[in-house]
């Protein structure tokens, strides 16, 4: 009877308990999982930095579906240009998602001319449009009203093979109106043209990595076999962008490369800062069946931040100017806010836009509180206002206590304020050994200065006591010696005899 009673009580209690449990709180609002890598090379869950805001297709804009759109660019006025390759047109959209106009042709010597499979575009500060008109083998330069300025066509140069086909894919322009073009099959690097469209030369060649096993096999193969082996040629660049200082950012899709993102200075050297925990290469950990990130677009934003787009897993990786991975978001699936074949990333007014060729639409992402706080702190740090960045970093840490960059940021600010001891702690939390070393060096010097008197007194006291001890021993031994001498010599001999 009692057993039954007990059972009932327990059952009732458990029922109560089930009802009392709140609805699971893990239902995330994003269709992807956000994470970041910690110092120990582990992917740690993190709050989403950007969430999908809306998805826009060509039909919704009232211009008919996009067909295989290949590129998207936002000009200084916030006007979005979509390169609708399959329809051979450029669609211009303002920030309120109203179509401004459609450029599908231009007047060339009085005749109507059009594009043939355009795949890249750039709009410079004056509103001049540079369109990589791929199948026509030319770059079309239009002014902001859409009338033709000039063509950049297949260059005649000694360093180019005469039978090569000029098929520009991506294009960007610097402040001096130099034009950088990525062309199909151009392994030598990025083609550079002067403002008049004359070919200057190449910048930023990708290096071929030496493969030692291949070298080993080559030692043992015959000439005929060698001829059958694949040639090792450098990979092409996949996309380019330019920052406010005129440095060209370029991505490539070389799967084995540790440096798929490059920042090229005017003489073509890679000057990207890579001070983060890991290489600037997208995912650090990945399944072998999935493979490494394939970076196909890069967008430089304000304050030295840049985002790269991984077409392999549909993720966007954002780095700061020092090469720290700030956040990762995005994914591939059929849900709204994810991608099928993402091809281009842009940023407009703090939001990110991603063009998806597979779904023929644009996904707009807006920053969450976490994302915007990180952006703000990075901006403050970049502008040298580290002290103002501290409360922002603290806010970031409240949202994500695993965010190492925030600890390092606070540490750097404390270091600047000469609060070295506190800085030590933050650098340790952020696993920043260089910062820690600097802070410790200063702290140690301060400590020594402060306690120099104490150190010296202890040292003198120690030396004095040691001296006194020595003296005491010497004196007492002498006395013993004196006392033992008359009768002691015989005893000593006996003792020695025993020992021997």
């Amino acid at each position: 009877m009692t057993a039954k009673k007990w059972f009932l009580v327990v059952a009732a209690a458990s029922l109560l308990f089930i009802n009392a449990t709140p609805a699971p709180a893990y239902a995330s609002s994003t269709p992807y999982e956000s994470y970041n890598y910690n110092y120990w090379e582990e992917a740690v869950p993190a709050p989403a930095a950007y969430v999908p805001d809306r998805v826009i297709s060509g039909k919704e804009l009232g211009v008919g579906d996009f067909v295989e759109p290949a590129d998207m660019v936002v000009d200084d006025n916030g006007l979005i240009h979509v390169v609708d390759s399959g329809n051979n047109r450029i669609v211009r959209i303002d920030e309120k998602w109203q179509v401004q106009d459609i450029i599908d042709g231009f007047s060339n010597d009085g005749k109507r001319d059009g594009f043939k499979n355009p795949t890249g575009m750039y709009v410079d500060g004056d509103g001049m449009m540079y369109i990589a008109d791929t199948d026509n083998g030319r770059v079309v330069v239009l002014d902001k009203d859409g009338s033709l300025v000039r063509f950049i066509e297949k260059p005649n140069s000694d360093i180019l093979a005469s039978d090569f086909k000029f098929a520009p894919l991506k294009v960007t322009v610097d402040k001096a109106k130099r034009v950088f073009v990525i062309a199909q099959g151009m392994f030598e690097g990025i083609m550079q043209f002067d403002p008049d469209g004359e070919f200057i030369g190449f910048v930023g060649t990708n290096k071929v990595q030496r493969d030692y096993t291949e070298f080993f096999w080559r030692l043992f193969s015959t000439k005929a076999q060698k001829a059958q082996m694949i040639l090792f040629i450098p990979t092409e660049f996949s996309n380019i962008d330019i920052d406010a200082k005129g440095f060209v950012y370029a991505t490539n899709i070389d799967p084995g490369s540790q440096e798929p993102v490059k920042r090229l200075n005017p003489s073509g050297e890679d000057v990207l800062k890579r001070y983060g925990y890991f290489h600037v290469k997208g995912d650090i950990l990945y399944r072998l069946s999935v493979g490494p990130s394939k970076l196909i677009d890069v967008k430089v934003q304000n304050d030295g931040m840049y985002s790269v787009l991984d077409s392999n897993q549909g993720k966007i990786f954002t780095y700061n100017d020092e090469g720290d991975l700030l956040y990762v978001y995005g994914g591939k699936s059929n849900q709204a806010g994810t991608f099928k074949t993402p091809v281009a990333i842009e940023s407009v007014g703090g939001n990110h836009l991603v063009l998806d060729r597979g779904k023929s639409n644009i996904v707009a992402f807006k920053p969450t509180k976490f994302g915007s706080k990180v952006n703000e702190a990075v901006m403050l740090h970049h502008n040298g206002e580290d002290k103002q960045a501290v409360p922002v970093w603290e806010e970031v840490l409240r949202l994500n206590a695993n965010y190492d960059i925030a600890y390092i940021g606070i540490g750097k600010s404390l270091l600047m304020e000469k609060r070295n001891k506190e800085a030590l702690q933050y650098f340790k939390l952020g696993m920043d050994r260089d910062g820690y070393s600097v802070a410790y060096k200063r702290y140690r010097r301060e400590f020594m200065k402060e306690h120099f008197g104490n150190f010296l007194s202890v040292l003198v006291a120690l030396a004095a006591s040691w001296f006194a001890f020595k003296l005491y021993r010497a004196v007492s031994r002498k006395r013993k010696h004196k006392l033992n001498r008359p009768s002691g010599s015989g005893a000593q001999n006996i003792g020695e005899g025993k020992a021997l």
Partner: protein
Amino acid sequence: MKQDFIKFPLHLIVHPFDGFWDMKYDGKGKVRVALFILALVVLTVILQNQFAGFLVNYNDPRYLNSLTQLITIVFPFFLWCVSNWAITTLMDGEGKFKEIVMATGYALLPLVLIYVPMTIASRFMVQEETAFYYLFHSISTIWFIGLLFVGTMTVHQYSAFKTIVTMALTVIVMGIIVFLGTLVMSMMQQIIEFIVNIYRELTFRT
């Protein structure tokens, strides 16, 4: 006590030829001292992994395990002793197993003597000074290998060249022992599984 545990080991590490000779022929070495030094090495390595300064300590504190560290030191130690004994028995070595354990144990002493102060000092170092930390670590390793060399040479009464060959062979034998060990393990596993399967078959039949 003081003679066995402090004076003689300290004498041995700075006068290895004398020391190992005394250890072998004058009976000054004690196995328990060697094992005590081994225990000290385990302790110092554990302390070093846990307490070395942030700038030189690249261990992930979440995965530090004293038992694993104990095994990774004690197991190779005895593996070395057994392999060395096995190989020197075939190569006319004069050393007994006890002497090999003693020689190896005493040779470990520099590790203890250097690791402990360096662990403490590393906590007060900045990046530029960590070079000294690594320098002293290298010194202790070289010292240890030198002592092991002299110890092996003296214990077995070998020439220098033969000692080097023996030491190299010992390392190979260590590998063979580990290989055979894993082989036996996996065989045993399969045999046990086989017997269990037969048992199961029989129980299901009836």
